């Protein structure tokens, strides 16, 4: 990958962290729930670059988000990495392109991310998160993620584009060439 997409992705991580910790942490909550912008961006990047780079991006983005949470450092990083890996696989082999593919990826990724986050945090000692209240939060957050995915996916596509534009598959390091 050339330096321009890397720089754009790094700036996007900073922007996501700032927005998540300010605008979305207080004002833009819906029914008391905030979307997971870092997770959404990870899913979008994984769809553009593949599972391996999606996982790596998710790890870095998750670490940045973890610095602002009271849960242990690494919980979001692991969650985002696993969701990014899964989203890359799903995009390349399972989901068919359609107008609903983007919000569906946002919703499914949000659901998977929420469940993984609660599960990993519970194993790390935050077992109080295993509650019905968490289920409500995960469902609302995933719907919010589905809505915002419509805006986040084009941004991720812009950030991951090559200097020549067009096909991004060359960025994937694990390609099979017959």
């Amino acid at each position, binding site marked *: 990958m050339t330096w321009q997409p890397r720089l754009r992705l790094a700036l996007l991580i900073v922007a996501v962290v700032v927005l998540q910790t300010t605008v979305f942490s207080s004002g833009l909550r819906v029914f008391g729930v905030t979307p997971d912008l870092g997770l959404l961006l990870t899913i979008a990047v994984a769809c553009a670059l593949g599972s391996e780079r999606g996982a790596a991006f998710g790890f870095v983005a998750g670490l940045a988000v973890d610095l602002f949470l009271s849960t242990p450092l690494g919980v979001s990083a692991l969650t985002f990495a696993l969701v990014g890996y899964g989203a890359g696989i799903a995009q390349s082999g399972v989901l068919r392109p359609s107008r609903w593919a983007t919000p569906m990826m946002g919703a499914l990724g949000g659901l998977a991310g929420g469940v993984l986050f609660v599960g990993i945090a519970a194993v790390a000692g935050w077992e*109080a998160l295993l*509650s019905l209240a968490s289920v409500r939060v995960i469902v609302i957050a995933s719907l919010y993620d589905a809505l915002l995915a419509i805006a986040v996916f084009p941004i991720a596509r812009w950030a991951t584009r090559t200097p020549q534009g067009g096909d991004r598959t060359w960025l994937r390091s694990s390609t099979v*060439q017959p």
Partner: protein
Amino acid sequence: MVAYQRTNRRPILVLIVVTAVALITLDVRGSGPISTVRGGVHDVIDPVAGALEAVFAPVGDWIDGVTSASALKDENARLRRRLDAARGQRAAARAAIEENKELKKLLNLPFAEGTDAIAAPVVDGAPGNFEVTVQIGRGASDGVGTDMPVVTGAGLVGRVIEVSRDRATVLLVNDPQSGVGVKMERTGTTGVAKGRGDTGTLRVDYVDPNVEVREGEVVSTWGQQASPFPAGIPLGTVSKVTRTRGDLEQDVLVKPLVDFSHLDYVKVLRPSPGR
């Protein structure tokens, strides 16, 4: 001849998982460098955050109004009824406040006036969905430190868990990870009040089943030696008691005195040198 160029994906995923698990383990065990890094990152981001909050506050207020319109109507009617009742109680309350001030002076409670406290505005909520915290606009440069109790005039809010130069993160008592040693004021029995998220109540564990706890009983901090909370800070009133025969403890729910949905200003209590 067909040539396959393929790198193995799994080692990278395994490396990420192992690194994340190592970080989680280090942080759970209380690694100092991780707290330092967190504080440093907050110092960089906080000025940008402050500017963004001012810009987006009206948008947030509008969304809050739309999503809670029906709840606001109910609350409005309820508040009108309460206002009528409150007018009648006002005169009696004035006398009680004066009496209370005098008693506090006599007893020299840490929660009373004169305690070394730092007033702080609440500037942000929690960045995630699975924690109940607020950001306050005072930090290490103002003398705020970790584990300091945070209160309002109504009672206990929580404790400081993270400090940067100009800001601090407060874990509210209704966070599921929060635990506060408490004492029932009437019976003197003790327990640990645990948060239950947005349910509006706290659950008190380890309450002796042989003690008769009554609804409406005032619950305050116990102030054990290892606790960051001094004794006597009001926490709430008992809202529900369930006793099951044969159980080793009784289920006690407490309604907090502090309205966590409308926190604007709080006070951070600095421990006295003797503590």
